[in-house]
């Protein structure tokens, strides 16, 4: 799966969680720009895990602050 494909699939998943309709770029941060609280993070992570059939452990989540890092992490976890 190339980066664009991962990116476009995550973009669909993030929509219902993007309550502010913020523009999503690689530098968009989850805590700051999107104002995700811990419950939103859990539901969003679960949606990604189910979509790609992967686990993103909390240890890995701690390293992911912005959208671009998430796309890269998912790409890596799917074995690309």
């Amino acid at each position, binding site marked *: 799966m190339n980066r664009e494909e991962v990116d476009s699939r995550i973009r669909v998943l993030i929509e219902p969680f993007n309550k502010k309709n913020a523009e999503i770029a690689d530098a968009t941060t989850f805590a700051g720009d999107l104002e995700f609280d811990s419950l939103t993070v859990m539901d969003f992570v*679960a949606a990604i895990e*189910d979509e790609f*059939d992967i*686990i993103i*452990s*909390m240890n890995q989540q701690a390293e992911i602050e912005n959208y671009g890092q998430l796309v890269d992490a998912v790409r890596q976890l799917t074995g690309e």
Partner: protein
Amino acid sequence: MGETVSETRDLFSKFDEIIQTRETLLASGVEDPFSLVMEKVLSPTRAICNGRSTILLGTYNYMGMTFDPDVIQAGKDALDNYGSGTTGSRVLNGTYQGHKEVEQALREFYAMDHAMVFSTGYQANLGIISTVAGKGDYIVLDIDSHASIWDGCALGNAEVVPFKHNDIEAMDKRLGRIPEGAGKLVVLEGVYSMLGDIAPLKEMVAVAKRHGAMVLVDEAHSMGFIGEHGRGVAEAQGVIDNVDFIIGTFSKSVGTVGGFCVSNHPKFEILRLVCRPYVFTASLPPSVVATAATSVRKLMHAGNKRAHLWENSKRLHGGLRAQGFTLGTEEPQSAIVAVIMPDLERGAAMWEALLKEGLYVNLARPPATPAGMTLLRCSLCAEHSSEEVETILGMFERAGKAVGII
């Protein structure tokens, strides 16, 4: 040599938001819900709080053992015979006869091969979870787990994977995605203390075992009360034999302080040497282990008290529902009845109105609560009389109407 003096960066600035929330709440004139003082304790269910005679409905003292005459006498005898404290670690000079006796009482209570007593329940979770699950292992746990479970995860080096509360399918899927060959520990609770709901352990333990995971169940809020022998939700649902580790506490039904883990694992005893929250702290005082051992043994034969506690829980739950309160569970599932408040302000107002009526409950708020809820959490005691439960319902009705919640 030139020296530059930098301005000290205040490390407390990170607490400003919570300081502000607290000041705003107290500025409304409400009595501080987190600074209550019990000046006198009259019984497991009565105290003088902030100068008022008060019914206690938020103590986790489920079985009312704190003033049991046999328990008190055992503590007094231990103080006389063994002194006020051990001043030592369990693995050095801190294991007295009483520590061995309470561990023996726990082995008999749970019918298990091994028991290990910690200085608090918090440390039992901290120690077992951080030690058993190491680097490269996976901990799969319920998102609504108690702080001591999360802190046990944070202290260790395992990969931490949470799933949605009580969601069997979500747990199953996550276990299925763990890399081949990795060690797996599933961490569950019998009763979740915020809403008082129980876990579907029968299904969850079966799923965990199908994936080859070890299972730890925290039965802090069910011991002494749920299950035929009071061993907890895992006993009640018939899966206790498939649970690898049960964590419990002396600070609820047992009526003192301390924590423990019981297990049938053949290598369990090695934990006494490798579990840091067990080794690097002083052991419980002799009077505490003596009261705990006496209480645990009495809880083996407490069937009538268990039945009365269930009656109390059912009556309070049904009564509050009929008055129009929103509760944490549809049906009473434990000795905890959680009343959901619309927000922190009205929750605090209701808490204060109840206190003025002469009733103490716990005000619980984020981050301890799930989904950002404010709760008035009631925990019943086997020593609450049926009449007291009716009195409590009257207090809730008056306070709820005064604050405008019902």
